[in-house]
């Protein structure tokens, strides 16, 4: 087996893994009952899927055109940094704006803290006025 066939097989496996992870996260977005569980499915597996796809693209262009693409490395790094932060911000906004948890969930530890914080905020607002 020549080196070109091996590189092509590696690239194909990486890209296929990435798209399969992406479609698994789509199945999770379709089926899970709650905005928090849906964000869990969407953020993690889609990030890993797009990282695998971009890594396959990087290896392909590194082999065929002999050129390390800095832009693609920056893209991988940027997606890897920002996608979990975006998921965290969406979950935080959902909880603070009062989206209910799924009826199957049995424990909510954050509720006391958020209630306490909002009571203090209301009290300080009352003192200022």
């Amino acid at each position, binding site marked *: 087996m020549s080196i070109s066939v091996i590189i092509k097989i590696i690239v194909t496996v990486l*890209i296929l893994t990435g*798209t399969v992870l992406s479609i698994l996260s789509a199945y999770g977005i379709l089926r899970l009952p709650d905005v928090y569980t*849906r964000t869990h499915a969407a953020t993690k597996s889609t990030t890993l899927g797009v990282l695998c796809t*971009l890594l396959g693209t990087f290896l392909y262009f590194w082999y065929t055109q002999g050129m390390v693409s800095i832009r693609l490395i920056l893209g991988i790094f940027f997606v890897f940094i920002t996608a979990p932060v975006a998921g965290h911000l969406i*979950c935080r906004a959902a909880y603070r704006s009062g989206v209910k948890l799924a009826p199957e969930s049995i424990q909510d530890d954050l509720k006391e803290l958020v209630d306490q914080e909002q009571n203090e905020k209301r009290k300080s607002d009352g003192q200022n006025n």
Partner: protein
Amino acid sequence: MFEGILLICLFFLSVSILVGLYRVIKGPSMPDRVMALDTIGINIIAGVAIFSILLNTQDYFDIILLIGILSFIGTISFSKFIERGYIIEYKRDY
């Protein structure tokens, strides 16, 4: 063979974008829609990468970076708007 597998990957990605569109239309709350739009942006990044292999060009890597940055900025501004009601804060009381 190689290009056929890449086309199958593009089909998978478009199915996952369609599922994201379903969640954007039907999603019961506003953060659901923002999360689905973020997922659609990331899937479009993967689709552009596969297209640049199919067309054998390096000119689309800028678009990958650009879509990543724009999707992140849109998501954080939408979540700040949902959480607080404003996006850019004006300080009045010193």
